[in-house]
Every structure is written in structure tokens, then in C-alpha cells.
């Protein structure tokens, strides 16, 4: 067999279908021999990796049942504690803020009242300086 193996023949070789002529050619032809060996080696290595991965995965606990509870539960518990502790603090701070706001509002109103309050109408205000103190 002089011609190189076709793609189909190489695929058939991999499935175990090989004629005596093909076997002789692969023995003699370095190119075809290397190609077949390379493909066989890649497939064998793939088989090894799948088996190792599977054996490792079968031995490990499932992500859904192990990793998630430890990490997520811790996060949720911490968040819950933070919320529970934060609520009273927030309420106190909010009350203090409202009281301060009320005081500021009252002071502002007083200032406005003082500004607006007049003992005499505005046109008569200059006359006040002429009036004696005891009348005032």
C-alpha cells in the first residue's frame, strides 16, 4: 500500500477497523505512523484525564451541599446581625436628627418673628426717636 491513509481510514483505524495493508503501511510510513500515534496518544490522554476528573469529583462533596452552606450561611448571618444591630442605632440617630431639626426650626421662626414684629407702623418708625423714653 503506497498511498497515505485517508482521513476516513485514520478514523476507521481509531475505531479498530484496520486491514492488513493499512497495518503494514502504518508500520512502514513514518508520516502515517506518527499521525496515528499522535491521535491515539491524544485520545488516551483524554481518557486518562476524564477518568481522573471523574474519580476526583466522585470523592468530593457536592458544591451545592457543602460549599454554599458554609460561605453563604456565614454571609447571611453576618448581614442579619448587622441589620439587627443597626436598626436601634438608626432609630436613635433619626430621633436626634429630628429634635435638632425642630430646635433649628423654632429658632428660625423666632428670628423671623423678631424681624417682622413692629411696635408702630413702618412710616412712623422715624418718629419713635423723637418720643421720650417714658412714653415709650
Amino acid at each position, binding site marked *: 500500500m503506497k498511498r*497515505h491513509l485517508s*482521513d*476516513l481510514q*485514520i*478514523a*476507521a483505524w*481509531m*475505531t*479498530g477497523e484496520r486491514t492488513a495493508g493499512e497495518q503494514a503501511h502504518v508500520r512502514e510510513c513514518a*508520516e*502515517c505512523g*506518527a*499521525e496515528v500515534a*499522535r*491521535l491515539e*496518544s*491524544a*485520545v488516551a*490522554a*483524554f*481518557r*486518562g*484525564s*476524564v*477518568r*481522573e*476528573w*471523574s*474519580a*476526583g*469529583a*466522585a470523592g*468530593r462533596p*457536592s*458544591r*451545592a451541599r457543602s460549599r454554599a452552606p458554609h460561605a453563604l450561611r456565614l454571609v447571611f448571618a453576618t448581614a442579619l446581625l448587622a441589620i439587627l444591630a443597626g436598626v436601634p442605632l438608626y432609630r436613635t440617630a433619626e430621633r436626634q436628627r429630628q429634635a435638632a431639626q425642630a430646635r433649628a426650626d423654632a429658632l428660625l421662626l423666632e428670628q423671623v418673628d423678631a424681624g417682622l414684629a413692629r411696635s408702630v407702623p413702618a412710616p412712623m418708625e422715624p418718629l419713635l426717636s423723637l418720643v421720650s423714653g417714658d412714653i415709650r
Partner: protein
Amino acid sequence: MADPCKPRHLKFRLYLRVQPTVSDAVEEWPVSESGAAQLEDFDAVVRIHRPKIFRFALASTYDRDAAETLTQDCFLKAYRSREWFRGDSSVQTWLMQIAVNLVRDWARNRRLQFWKRLRTAPEPDSVKDWMPDRELSPEGQAMVREQVAAVWAAAGRLPERQRTVFLLRFVEDMDLLEIAAATGMKEGTVKAHLFRALEAVRGRIGRKK
């Protein structure tokens, strides 16, 4: 008090979340005592065949949780259908037939759940950590690792049937007739799928000729 109807040898743990749509691939198998006798010690059947079924499910789904569920479903289905197992094929082929159908249903459901289709490759560490023949030189090991990664990548891109046939032939070492029985395809169809899969793998690892 123990339930007298519960089979005592059914020791494998069954998960509550069973796939809603599983094919009834085994329901047409006629009754036979000789076939059913092979499944008498079902605990032993599970013990012997579980690693193979899990491996196939894992390599097909790339998802450990899904693979575990599918494996449990496979044995649950097999247990429920054991009376219909005639024994024409080996127990392994029969179980693989159930597993292939379950994986197919899983893939069909997965196509609808597009938001879950994020993982298209095995856990990277699994491939990276895999140690080829320790007698190889570091260069040789690196080359083999490269080849393995290329085959993984090629297998991940194969259409479902081609991948199934590829895995059954080259990972599970099943012959064409067994694959035909497990997949419900004709031998010629199996061969055609296998050839196409090999072409894709050759293309990925880089053909030299």
C-alpha cells in the same frame, strides 16, 4: 417500624429532585427471568456500574451536581424497570442506554435554561492538575497536557450525539455494537458520528498530514 414493601437491598440514596421529563427507554424490554436475575443483587449492580455511569454523565454535562443527579436517576429508573430487562445486552449497556437518554433529556432542558449555560468546559483545575505519565519529560508532559486540553475543547464543541458516541467509544471503551444498542442508533450511524467526531478532534489538535 420498617416498611415491609420497601426493598431492603435498595441502599443507594435517592435524591428528591428527579428530572421531570425522562425518556422511557427501557419500558419496551420484555420480561425475562434470566435478565432479571442479573439484577437480583441491585446493590452490587450499583456498586459496580456507578463509577462508569457517573463518569459518562460528568463528561457529558461538565456539571458534577447534574452528573450526580443523573446517575441517581439512572439507577432509580433501572431499579423500577428491572423486571423488563431481558438480558439481550449486558447490564452495563442497558444502564448506559438509560444514562444516554437521561443526558439527552438533561441537554434538552438545558437548552431552554439559557441562563445556566455558562459552563462549557470542565473545571479548569481538573484538566490542569491532571498528570500525564510521570516518566515523560517536562516538555513531553506539557505537550500531552496541550493535547488533552485540545481534545476537551473539541469534545465540548461536538454536537450532542457525536460527543456521546465519542465518549462511549474512547472513554468507556465500548464497541460499535454496544454503542448502537446504548444510543438506539444503527451501527453505520454510530460509525458516521464517530468519524465526524474524530475529524473534529484531529482538526483541533492540529493534523500533521
